[in-house]
């Protein structure tokens, strides 16, 4: 069975948790004991409807305040697909948790309240989804029951959103009018909106194309060197890792970075037997025909299509620290694929004004939940692709070495020539 990971995003109170509750309920994925538990809670609180949001708002503080603070993951499957849902928080102050949930998604599902229309947070989350390279966006115009299921209102919201969306990188955008509360067009087609003849949300999720990761160049970051130290496998040396792009085949010539040495793939091993070919996102162990020096943090790459190798690059950075800002000169620990190094911020080129997507080139720092283009230099060369080309080899995190907190999420735009580009 195929698996689709999607994230629900959008402003607070647009009904994300309710929609997931509805999706689970109408696809019969909610169990009896879970339903009884939330029915009892809803009734005790004097709520008019069974509060489906209680299914995902699992923390005490969330249930008390009626908001989502952190990502909740939910799972369901239909005969066609298995789904992993990341239900992300809508509050601006929890944007970093939204980014956590959306970073691994194949599809983002953005909710917009039909009464409110496109608000700042819808734009913010749509932009972040696009920045994170999520190829598919589904715009659910929710609460259609509160605007009398009016087609005109749906069209207005869609038109408004599509003006903004022209500036996004998202490959495909689908619009669906729904009511999560009563279930229109979530799993079942709505009788109240005969004017809509597109798919229901679930039909769309079941049929949207999942993008393969093997159409990029071969990338294999080495995680762990396997030396069995037992008689049976005395001379065995294998490089364990997860294919981060493209396809590896026995007999392929690969280049080891950073040494630049070439070798040939002698075998691709797994516990379940040898393979002739491995593709992203498989975890395998690769043996090379030459005795070359390879360790964790190195990368085996396609010899004909190698990644950038550079200490200097430009990246989008989403800043996530509460107590400190990203400022030029600041030093962090950086992790990109299996490679850890240290990094210094050379400069902040621009900060993004999310509402307008305008760039503020006078900005000199990034505060919590702000996003900007930043120049970074690392203590040793990294091997990377642009994030647009490869989400695995183009992403990195920055870690504050004093608090050990994950403070920045980075998406590489490209390598820089240190001589010319630092004139900035």
């Amino acid at each position, binding site marked *: 069975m195929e698996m689709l990971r999607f994230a629900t995003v959008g402003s607070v109170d647009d009904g994300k948790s309710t929609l997931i509750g509805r999706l689970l309920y109408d696809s019969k994925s909610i169990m*009896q004991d879970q339903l009884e*538990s939330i029915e009892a809670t809803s009734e005790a609180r004097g709520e008019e409807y069974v509060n489906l949001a209680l299914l995902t708002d*699992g923390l005490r503080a969330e249930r008390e305040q009626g908001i989502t603070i952190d990502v909740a993951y939910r799972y369901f499957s239909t005969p066609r697909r298995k789904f992993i849902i990341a239900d992300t928080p809508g509050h601006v102050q929890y944007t970093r948790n939204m980014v956590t949930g959306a970073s691994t998604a194949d599809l983002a599902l953005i909710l917009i309240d039909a009464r409110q229309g496109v608000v700042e947070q819808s734009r913010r989350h749509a932009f972040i989804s696009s920045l994170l390279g999520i190829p598919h966006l589904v715009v659910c115009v929710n609460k259609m029951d509160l605007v009398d299921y009016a087609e005109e209102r749906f069209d207005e919201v869609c038109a408004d959103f599509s003006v903004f969306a022209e500036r996004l990188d998202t490959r495909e955008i689908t619009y669906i009018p729904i009511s999560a509360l009563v279930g229109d067009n979530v799993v079942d087609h709505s009788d109240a909106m005969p004017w809509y003849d597109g798919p229901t949300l679930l039909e769309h999720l079941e049929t949207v194309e999942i993008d393969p990761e093997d159409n990029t160049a071969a990338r294999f970051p080495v995680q762990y060197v396997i030396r069995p130290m037992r008689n049976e496998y005395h001379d065995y040396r294998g490089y*364990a890792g997860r294919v981060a792009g493209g396809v590896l085949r026995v007999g392929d010539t690969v280049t080891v970075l950073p040494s630049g040495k070439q070798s040939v793939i002698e075998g691709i091993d797994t*516990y379940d037997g040898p393979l*002739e070919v491995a593709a992203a996102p*498989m975890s395998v*162990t690769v043996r090379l025909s030459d005795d070359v020096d390879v360790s964790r943090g190195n990368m085996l790459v396609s010899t004909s299509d190698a990644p950038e190798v550079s200490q200097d690059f430009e990246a989008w950075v989403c800043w996530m620290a509460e107590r400190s800002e990203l400022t030029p000169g600041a030093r962090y620990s950086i992790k990109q694929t*299996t490679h850890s190094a240290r990094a210094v911020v050379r400069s902040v080129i621009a900060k993004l004004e999310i509402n307008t997507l305008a760039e503020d080139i006078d900005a000199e720092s990034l505060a919590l939940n702000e996003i900007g283009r930043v120049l970074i230099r690392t203590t040793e060369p990294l091997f990377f692709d642009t994030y647009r080309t490869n989400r695995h080899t183009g992403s990195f995190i920055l870690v504050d070495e004093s608090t*050990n907190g994950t403070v920045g999420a980075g998406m590489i735009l490209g390598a820089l020539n240190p001589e010319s580009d630092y004139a900035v």
Partner: protein
Amino acid sequence: MTTSAPPELTHLQVLEAESIHIIREVAAEFEHPGMLFSGGKDSIVMLRLAEKAFWPARIPFPVAHVDTGHNFPEVLDYRDRRVAELGIKLIVGSVQESVDAGKLVDETGPRMSRNRLQTPVLLETIASAKFDAVFGGGRRDEEKARAKERVYSFRDDFGQWDPKNQRPELWDLYNSRHRVGEHFRVFPLSNWTELDIWQYIAQDGIEIPSIYFAHQREVFERDGMLMAANDYATRYPTETLSMQTVRYRTVGDMTCTAAVSSEAATVEQVIAEISASRITERGSSRADDKTSEAAMEDRKREGYF
């Protein structure tokens, strides 16, 4: 040279690849990792994934088990056999020893359980083994507080989880940095569901303890659940024993894990049964979750898995 196309991956292969990646990251980045292994189905699958991650080498870390003294003997037998087969070290933290030494005091009466006593023994085991990362077989689909937890779940030097202040966790780039005394709980099975676990057990032909399959057992009914006759908790006068055909859906302590009525005697029959079930595994078999709506969150804050 072959030009064969890469295989289409099933959801089990994708989940397996993700779990193996996590296990290898931990082995590479931590000094003293350890894996909890109870002999329950989730930890059995987790241990198999660890075996796969390092094959043909041995698993490069020990396994640990908190033995409450109220475990099912069939499960402990399985645990010991599996550990011997893999040639790895087993560390046992014993609740009974802590009770005998007077460090912990047992609850008494029909509702007695050692569920809460597990936490201090677990924390002591982690400290004495100097574990800086401990793998657990927890799944996000099990329970609503677990659904919120990161794959790398940071614990402070008291072993506590702070659910309102979790580190961001982007892509598959896990941040392993911590200070001395702090540690991580790591959940490689985060994205697996109960059904995935069973499908994987079927696919790989993994042996599991006999109590997961239908068998005859002396049970009594409490709160709508079937509890095994045991020597630890007393029964209320109305709770009478009867012989029934049951199986276990989850395996924990005898005092807090209930059996379900079942005729499922094979993995395939179990899969058919849970596919049709309208009740979650914890709802059908865990008395410990029923104490309050946030029981799991509260226990996790104290250092529970």
